[in-house]
């Protein structure tokens, strides 16, 4: 009986978090188009609903009713599995994100490792989708994605080590609790070892990891048509699309928890905890997501060799130096 109750509660929680994430993902596409539009002195979507607010629903309906095409030369099983393999890891990673002081769905003590592992699995979806399409553009996109993920996962993982050293835990809820009490306790700027360099490295690597501009080489539309999802259409395409945006939300959530004090308000006297905690959390997440859009509107795409040089010759050494400096300072300040 006990088991039944706990399973029911967990299922309901999963439903709530999943639904919330999917809604945010849907309207994130709208927000991105609006922000990009206004940054280019345009208006963005305006036709469906008030100022185009129902655009995601119209887009979803359109994609749902589109013809589902599987190229005759494609490997049918892997071609079908790839979008799922891409979306599912992005969604199940939200199980360990503590949105507020109620804690995450699954409070495991290796949450950071769990997220890093799942983000690596998500790259398989892109890689396999690119290979199974049996098209040169898809294959090139998949190959680029593999190279990019290998290079940037390294700096992404190492940029987190500083925070892990300071918090002394791999559990996201423990890390979040350690940042209570005003914005000067957030790990991005907390004394004695502010992780601001690690935060910038994390942001750059996260953008590269989610294949967003200016690191969108796997789907470089000016050279590779649409990259790894050139051959995809309809709902399969939508799955890849949702996976990309879910990954954006995920890396923003992780960045918020590790560097920006999770659900804690910037000052102690502000209301906190419970629903307020969710509000503060969302505010920070959307701030980070805005940076994603902002960079997309500002920077052109990097060339392949520039991407590799930035990853291996700048970010990885910087992240290593940050780990060394943080450990020394943390040891001395103990």
């Amino acid at each position, binding site marked *: 009986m006990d088991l039944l109750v706990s399973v029911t509660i967990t299922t309901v929680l999963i439903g709530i978090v999943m639904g919330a994430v999917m809604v945010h993902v849907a309207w994130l596409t709208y927000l991105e188009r609006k922000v990009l539009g*206004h940054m280019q002195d345009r208006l963005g979507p*305006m036709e469906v609903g008030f100022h185009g607010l129902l655009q995601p629903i119209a887009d979803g309906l359109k994609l749902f009713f589109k013809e589902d095409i599987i190229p005759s030369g494609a490997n049918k099983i892997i071609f079908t599995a790839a979008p799922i393999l891409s979306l599912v890891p992005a969604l199940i990673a939200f199980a360990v994100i503590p949105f507020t002081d109620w804690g995450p769905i699954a409070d495991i003590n290796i949450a950071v490792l769990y997220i890093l592992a799942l983000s690596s699995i998500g790259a398989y979806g892109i890689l396999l989708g690119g290979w199974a399409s049996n098209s040169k553009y898809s294959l090139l996109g998949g190959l680029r994605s593999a190279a990019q993920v290998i290079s940037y996962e390294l700096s992404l993982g190492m940029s987190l080590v500083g925070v892990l050293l300071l918090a002394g835990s791999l559990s996201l809820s423990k890390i979040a609790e350690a940042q209570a009490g005003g914005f000067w306790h957030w790990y991005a700027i907390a004394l004695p070892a502010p992780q601001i360099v690690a935060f910038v490295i994390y942001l750059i690597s996260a953008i590269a990891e989610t294949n967003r501009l200016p690191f969108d080489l796997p789907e470089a539309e000016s050279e590779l048509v649409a990259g790894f999802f050139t051959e995809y259409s309809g709902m399969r395409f939508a799955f890849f699309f949702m996976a990309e945006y879910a990954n954006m939300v995920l890396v923003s959530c992780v960045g918020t928890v590790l560097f920006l004090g999770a659900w804690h308000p910037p000052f102690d006297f502000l209301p906190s905890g419970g629903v307020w905690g969710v509000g503060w959390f969302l505010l920070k997440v959307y701030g980070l997501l805005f940076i994603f859009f*902002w960079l997309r*509107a500002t920077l052109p795409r990097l060339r392949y060799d520039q991407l590799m040089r930035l990853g291996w010759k700048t970010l990885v050494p910087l992240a290593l130096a940050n780990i060394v400096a943080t450990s020394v300072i943390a040891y001395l300040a103990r």
Partner: protein
Amino acid sequence: MAQRISRLFRTIFLVEILRGLGLTLRHLFARPVTLQYPHQKPEVSRRYRGVMSLLRYQDGTEKCVGCGLCEAVCPSNVIKVVSAEQEDTPMKRYAREYWFDLSRCVFCGFCVEACPVDALAMTPNYEYSTVNKRELMLSKETLLGLGDRYFPKQPPKPAFVGSCESDLYLLTVQRKGYPLKGTEHQTPPSEPAISVKPGPSASEQSAP
């Protein structure tokens, strides 16, 4: 040395990227230039060259005299004029048919400039898209209708040649012996030398 240090500083603190970000942020709050087209229409210039149209005089008579200069000057072979003589007024011509192939028009306005009697005008109408290509072949009636719609105020018909006694038109008609029927002016009776001759006598004259 100082230059190298400043360059290093710029590289480390991503100065160029931050300046670019500042620019895009400024534009985020700038006024969009978008015109919501089907809901908002652009204000076109008074000299805008849209679909061509045929004009009338105040009394409703067509201005076009069927000279075909528009057809000759048209660079993309849009216009086809079938000229004919007016039945009641000899030597006065008009366009019996006037075809305008809008699907080929480049809106250069040469036809309007070439017209000796100002019978053509470009309307500010640019919304003429259709799903049927044949509808873009405009007839004389359509073009006149367009002219009536966009230029309702037209000048009165000028006192044309032939409207007063003993002008060149009348003298020529009489000399060549064309039948003058249904015109509102009378042959001057006091000049027998150029009296109207009937058709058969004219053919007699030309026959050797």
